[in-house]
């Protein structure tokens, strides 16, 4: 059978697109799904796509030269399809477990960042209020820090509650928590308390 260039192969193109999807997921692109759902959907699409492509494939493909046609007997392809199916399923299962694991650790890491900037804020707050002699704390900055802290606590409580709900969309809580902690960090940075 006559082979065609791999660059014209629908299977190769579909796999490149699916791999791009995987890379986007890995890079943290938000599909508005939970991490578990995102991984399962991408892994599932990848697997199904490969099986469909295998069914519609009529010609072998080559990169530089026509492959030896004696290697194209049916049995190895069945093995490869089964292997891809198993690897796809295993990939989905193991990654989902790791992602769930990461959600709680991510929460702990964000809370550690929060505690870290709070420690600096507390140190600043403990100074006499300006216009006392230096070093003193600006009452306006202290008010800002206190307000930002209350906002952050509200968001972090929401994140912690969401952690206990199976299938909850944690990505939005992660985003909001990071933003809330960053708001305190920005106040502290602007005041020169942290760099």
């Amino acid at each position, binding site marked *: 059978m006559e082979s065609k260039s791999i660059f014209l192969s629908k299977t190769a193109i579909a796999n490149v697109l699916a791999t791009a999807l995987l890379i986007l997921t890995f890079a943290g692109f938000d599909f508005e799904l939970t991490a578990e759902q995102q991984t399962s959907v991408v892994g599932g699409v990848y697997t199904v796509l490969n099986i469909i492509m295998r069914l519609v494939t009529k010609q072998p493909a080559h990169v530089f030269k026509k492959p030896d046609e004696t290697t194209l007997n049916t049995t190895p392809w069945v093995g490869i399809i089964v292997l891809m199916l198993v690897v796809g399923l295993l990939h989905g299962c193991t990654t989902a477990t790791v992602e*769930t*694991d990461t959600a*709680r*650790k991510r*929460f*702990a*890491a964000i*809370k*550690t*960042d*929060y*505690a*870290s*900037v*709070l*420690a*600096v*804020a*507390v*140190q*600043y*707050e*403990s*100074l*006499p*209020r300006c216009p006392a002699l*230096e*070093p003193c704390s600006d*009452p306006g900055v202290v008010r800002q*820090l*206190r307000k930002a*802290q*209350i906002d952050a*606590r509200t968001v972090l409580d929401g994140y*912690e509650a969401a952690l206990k709900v199976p299938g909850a969309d944690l990505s939005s809580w992660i985003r909001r928590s990071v933003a809330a902690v960053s708001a305190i960090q920005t106040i502290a940075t602007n005041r*020169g*308390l*942290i760099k």
Partner: protein
Amino acid sequence: MTAIIKAAQLLATWAPLALNGVSSARRVVMEGSALINKATEEGRDITDEELQILDDLVRDLEERLQRDDI
């Protein structure tokens, strides 16, 4: 010259404060990181008890930040 002296004075007053704050923050980070690393080394997730330890640490700091003005 006056500006240099003023800058040196400001540095002298703020540097110990900054160092103290940074040192306190570093301790907190070390405690939080230790919890996460321990869980990772033991091949498990963070437990509710560990999250509670972290929360106690945070709540203490929150109360100190929100205390009445001195």
